[in-house]
């Protein structure tokens, strides 16, 4: 094979027998060294900008391995992407070809591109094009309103947090976290480069069945968001797994979830990692405490420098993304620091996370802009104004709630029908939200209030970290 640096994923597979598993199938990775999941059509995709838009994570994973080092650019479409955004994604990423599987929905946005089906089954193919270039990887962010930002990475940066580290041969990775998001992709790459098997999640699989499957496949290292872990701990089937390394990422890990995991898996290392799609993996905390030691900020570690300015965490790192695609916004400041938008507060010798700047609410890893929900509520004919904010929640980390001022705020409803009337209006506003917003953006509760604070700027006063 041609020598490229870093070597392509296919060049890292090695002869050992190991597998990728999902709910329905397993694929033996060593067969991919001289095999294809793309019907032998890899040559058609050489040097092309390719969108991987398969429905299942298993087909995504196999297609990424086959294409890395051959395609010019790989753009990974996350699950639940808004079909209305596809045309912009195809345009901005200069997509020339799309990899689909049997369950991928059809889209008019793909017209004019070459379409290749990934079967998920590896067919022998001795004459595949050799990896000959360093492929650009593009991930989509979840933190924006409208079309997601597209973030360009190199494999060198994506794998810098663990490259060169050897894993024990009995390690089996598992992830609750989708590999089409940054945190999950890290684990996919760790498994491929580390020579281990990997157990993926499957859409629609009940948590108990998933936990049994993780146990049956002997998972030793397991990643999830705090929300994934809280849900797993609610299942009696948690007893089916005995990981020795438990990892959390994607949301703030609070002390309660860290303590519960330590209690449930006393033999395991419980670690929480901090990463963002733009800044890459910044650090991992293994002392069982929420937040991170203040000394992380004072000293560069593995080339990762951090500082806190105006309350938010800034990172300069060889693991950071190179740039945005199709957006004018700069990814880093002039000195090369990425502003993560995550607010931190110093408490003694430790920094604790205090939420997102701009009040962005993180609901089990899905981000919500308050303004987007307010805009919907404010369209309701009886609403004068509204304030949407996050509220701490033991299941999903946070939940959306709304304070609403009605147009007839000065009018006090008659005592006899007042409560019923208020409940009717609240129910009506909620139904209005449910009609147009995804479920996680619909407020869990609405309070009717007489007035909202307006700051000196004339904007709503938002009280947040």
């Amino acid at each position, binding site marked *: 094979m041609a020598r490229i640096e870093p070597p392509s994923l296919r060049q890292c597979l090695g002869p050992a027998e190991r597998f990728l598993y999902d709910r329905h199938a397993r694929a033996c990775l060593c067969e991919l060294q001289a095999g294809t999941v793309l019907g032998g059509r890899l040559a058609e995709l050489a040097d092309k900008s390719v969108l991987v838009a398969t429905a299942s994570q298993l087909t995504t994973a196999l297609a990424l391995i086959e294409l890395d080092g051959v395609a010019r650019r790989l753009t990974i479409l996350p699950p639940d992407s808004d079909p209305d955004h596809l045309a912009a994604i195809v345009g901005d990423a200069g997509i020339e070809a799309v990899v689909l599987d049997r369950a991928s929905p059809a889209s008019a946005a793909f017209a004019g591109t070459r379409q290749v089906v990934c079967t998920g089954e590896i067919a022998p193919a001795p004459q595949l094009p050799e990896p000959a270039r360093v492929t650009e990887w593009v991930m989509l962010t979840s933190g924006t309103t409208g079309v997601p930002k597209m973030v360009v990475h190199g494999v060198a940066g994506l794998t810098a947090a663990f490259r060169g580290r050897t894993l024990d041969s009995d390690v089996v990775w598992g992830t609750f976290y989708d590999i089409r998001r940054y945190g999950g992709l890290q684990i996919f790459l760790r498994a491929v480069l580390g020579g281990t098997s990997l157990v993926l999640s499957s859409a629609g699989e*009940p*948590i*108990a069945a998933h936990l049994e499957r993780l146990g049956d496949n002997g998972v030793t290292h397991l990643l999830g968001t705090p*929300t994934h872990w*809280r*849900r797993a*701990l*609610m*299942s*009696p089937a948690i007893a089916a797994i005995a990981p020795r390394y438990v990892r959390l990422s994607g949301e703030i890990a609070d*002390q*309660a979830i860290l*303590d*519960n995991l330590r*209690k449930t898996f006393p033999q395991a290392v419980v670690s929480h990692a901090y990463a963002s799609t733009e800044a890459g993996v910044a650090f991992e905390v293994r002392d069982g405490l929420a937040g991170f030691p203040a000394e992380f900020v004072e000293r560069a570690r593995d080339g990762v420098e951090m500082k806190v300015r105006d309350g938010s965490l800034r990172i300069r790192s060889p693991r950071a993304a190179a740039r945005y695609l199709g957006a004018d916004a700069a990814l880093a400041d002039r000195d090369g620091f990425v502003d993560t938008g995550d607010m931190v507060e110093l408490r003694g010798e430790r920094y604790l996370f205090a939420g997102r700047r701009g009040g962005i609410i993180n*609901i*089990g890893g899905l981000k919500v802009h308050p303004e987007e929900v307010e805009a919907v509520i404010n369209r309701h004919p009886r609403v004068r104004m509204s304030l949407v904010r996050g*509220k*701490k*929640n*033991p*299941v*999903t980390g946070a*939940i959306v*709630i709304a304070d609403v001022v009605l147009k007839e705020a000065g009018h006090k409803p008659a005592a006899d029908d007042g409560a019923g009337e208020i409940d009717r209006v609240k129910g009506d506003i*909620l139904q209005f939200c*449910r009609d147009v917003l995804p*479920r*996680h953006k619909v407020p*869990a*509760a609405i309070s009717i209030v007489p007035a909202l604070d307006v700051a000196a700027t004339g904007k709503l006063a938002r009280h947040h970290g």
Partner: protein
Amino acid sequence: MSVKLTITRQMEEIAREHGKILAPLRDDLVLLDSGLDSLGFAVLVARLEDKLGVDPFTASEEAVFPVTFGDFVKVYENGAH
């Protein structure tokens, strides 16, 4: 209204709002088999705080989210006193 009845009503309402089918709420029912998902339970805890004036899970760092419906009701019965 008893704590248990309040919880039952709220679960029925959330299931309806989220388009889920609620399993019969026996004490030994595993919550994850009730038909509500993580978001459903998140909403439930927020609504119960409104109705019962307490979120026992956020109030205490110790509290573990229970596995069964019966245990869930007990956490609120203890928290409401």
